[in-house]
């Protein structure tokens, strides 16, 4: 079954680690309906998971009174996912992220963590970090496009 009409699906997650998997499952289901290839769906799942983890951990600072919104909007040839936090911790994205430097990590000169934003940017066609007004409702916007030649 291939879905070509514009559709919006929304999910609201608690700010608790592990619930990013609910968003991954939802994004995967929508992408499958749209006809994305399995490898692109895996890319999307990881990007969505990392965006949700950032929103839970840094945006909402693990405050379980705050939730993370995930809005998936599809049209005929692309899927946009917005991951919205309720807190003040998500920084506006500075631009193109550099690839993690594994040599510096191995030498202890760089934190082994901190790869989430790189993975997001590397795995989707578009990634945009938008700071909310008054530090609220900041979001990450991800887009993957159907490859017509695949």
């Amino acid at each position: 079954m291939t879905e070509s009409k514009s559709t919006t699906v929304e999910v609201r997650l608690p700010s608790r680690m592990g619930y990013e998997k609910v968003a991954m499952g939802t994004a995967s289901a929508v992408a499958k309906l749209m006809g994305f290839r399995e490898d692109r769906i895996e890319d999307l799942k990881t990007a969505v998971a990392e965006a949700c983890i950032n929103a839970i951990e840094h945006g909402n600072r693990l405050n379980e009174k705050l939730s993370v919104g995930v809005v998936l909007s599809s049209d005929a040839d692309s899927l946009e996912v917005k991951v919205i936090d309720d807190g003040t911790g998500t920084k506006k994205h500075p631009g193109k992220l550099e690839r993690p430097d594994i040599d510096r990590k191995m030498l202890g000169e760089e934190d082994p963590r901190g790869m989430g934003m790189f993975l997001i940017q590397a795995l989707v066609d578009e990634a945009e970090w938008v700071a909310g007004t008054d530090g609220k409702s900041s979001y990450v916007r991800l887009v993957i496009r159907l490859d017509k030649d695949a």
Partner: protein
Amino acid sequence: MQSETKSRVDQLTSPAGHPVTVLRFEGDIASTSKEAVLGTYQALPKSDVKIILLDFSKVDYINSSGIALVIQLLIEAANAGQKVYAFGLSAHFTKVFTMVGITKYAGLYPTQNDALADL
């Protein structure tokens, strides 16, 4: 919500006759997996273990925090003069491990037999 990470250790010998310590993981590898990943590694006797093989064939989900734990394991192993290899990653996580540079410090193989044949 996250599936608990299980781990166990097996001792094998490669066809070339080298002892290989296999760390087998099961479940998710995420921020909650520190004990299963690093704890299991740190419990190995450093003087006896020279070649470590990480088995990801029963792991469905690895996030950036889980990748960071693998990198911490690689750092500790490098400092102890041990060689680390891995097998059983899906095509997607093979790509992710390659993107973040892990393949520079840990050879990846499709299967345990592929890895052992090369060790």
